[in-house]
């Protein structure tokens, strides 16, 4: 008979690094889009000042924290939720689920439909955050990949698809 074994499963370091980079990128892109895109700006306007939300994997992250500061500017606030007062938490039920989503094998709506997502916080703002993330994904991703990530690819103006996208990408990279 085999012996009883007590095992502490380890960590997926490479996955965590990949997701950390992706979340960092998306977080900064949200900050950039809030400056460039009127629709994103409007969604944030409707949220109270210092409203902060995080997206990550249960139970130990990685996370991305985005929120408004005291004067209403949208800021990427890093990856440590313990340092912030979080008003809305959107989490994937596991690191693997987040990885599946960020490798575009499962869109956000499909992950949600498959019970892989959980939300703690007020629902209207959660809806707004999902709309913001959808817009940001359209900015960041080429159309064929963005179509895998969201429910309906939007019909945007030429300017929004080109100039605004370039601005969002530049601001994301330089963090301004």
């Amino acid at each position: 008979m085999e012996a009883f074994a007590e095992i502490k499963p380890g960590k997926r370091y490479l996955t965590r690094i990949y997701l950390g980079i992706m979340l960092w990128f998306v977080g900064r892109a949200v900050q950039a889009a809030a400056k460039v895109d009127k629709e994103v700006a409007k969604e944030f306007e409707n949220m109270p000042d210092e409203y902060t939300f995080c997206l990550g994997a249960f139970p130990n992250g990685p996370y991305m924290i985005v929120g408004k500061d005291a004067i209403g500017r949208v800021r990427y606030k890093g990856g440590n939720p313990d340092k912030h007062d979080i008003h809305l938490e959107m989490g994937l039920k596991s690191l693997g689920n987040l990885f599946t989503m960020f490798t575009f094998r499962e869109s956000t709506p499909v992950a949600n439909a498959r019970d892989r997502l959980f939300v703690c916080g007020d629902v209207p703002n959660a809806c707004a955050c999902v709309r913001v993330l959808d817009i940001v994904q359209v900015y960041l991703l080429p159309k064929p990949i963005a179509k895998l990530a969201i429910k309906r690819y939007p019909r945007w103006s030429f300017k929004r698809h080109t100039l605004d996208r370039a601005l969002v990408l530049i601001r994301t990279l330089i963090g301004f």
Partner: protein
Amino acid sequence: MTTHFSFLCRTKTSAGTNALEHLPFELSGMGAKKPMVIQDAASRKLKRHKCLIRAFKDSGMTLGIAPAVPEPALSGSKKKPEATAQFIRDMYATYREKGYDAIIAVGKAAAADMAKALNIAVTLGPDALKGTDITAPLNPLIYIPTGVDTVTATAASVTFNRKAFTSPYLAPDQAVIDPAMLIPDDRDSLLDAALFCLALGCEVHALSGNPPARAYAAALVELAAVPLAQMIGSYSESNLKLRKKAEAGWQKQLVQAAVISGYLTDGSRPLLTLALGREISGDSGRVSLGMIMTVLLPAVLETLGRDRFGSLLLPLSGMERFSTVPVSQQPVTAVQTIRGLLNGLHAVTGGHTPRTLAEAGWQRDALTALAADENIQNITRDTAQDVLKCILTHACDGSPVTAPLG
């Protein structure tokens, strides 16, 4: 529907790709942090717990991997009570000593039944296994099947040391069906499971008059009938690669069916195909349980359902066929569909599977005697002797029941 009914299924079903990934979240929701993994021999041998360990990475939880449960199963007829009792004692001690707070059973019914018995011990104390009423939730219990089975692992009951326990709290809190955990079953096992689920689902759907049970049964019949028809249709497939691929697809669907079948065998309603099937297949030893149950099914439906089970044709045959059959012909068409599957199987196996109990080796006289047997009366919940006789004699020669009783 009937004028009164009750239904309870406490088990959450989660099925599909990456199902294991959700387990740490689910356990955390039940207040558990340190689950003990109980596996059957096949699962332990193939190290299925490694998939589980992978899924628990980054969860911060600790897993206890137990040795394989002693075989044969607790529910089997040839038990090894001393080995199972020792296993429970050892695991009880480890669970308590090392602070485990949940059980994950991996495998077939042997693992699930052992986990249920262990859960009684760790929640209520080892003396509870000598016999007690279980009236409150036990500690969290997750069941992960590795293949199909005709012993219902998800049923709300278990037998330990010849002592039967029945309580809704015995059923697993969650059945997690992840394709990554499956160990390929052979074609005969898949066929047997499909027939088992088909018979059970059809009987509940046709005879229970209980809407929630009918809903589970409809899903069960659909999950079983489609792979069954495909298995019969491609029985002679000689391309091994194609066959294995098809079998993997059927297994995925039939494991879901097998899990659901347990929800319908909670003991709250008599299931004649199951009760008689166990008795008959156990005695002949030659024909599988699922096969015998399906052979019994037409006679059970015709004897007890009379002409009121036409809606069964819908999960059996789908919307298109169901809609073309007049209401008055639906029951007879449903029975014909079931007989058609049996006859088709008989043909593709070159006559190796029975269509009647006679072909399964039973004599009419023996079946008449069986109907009067006291033990049968007990296990069929006092179903009238003439009803049993009617079912068994018609199943013997495969003749339709033209004049239902009562």
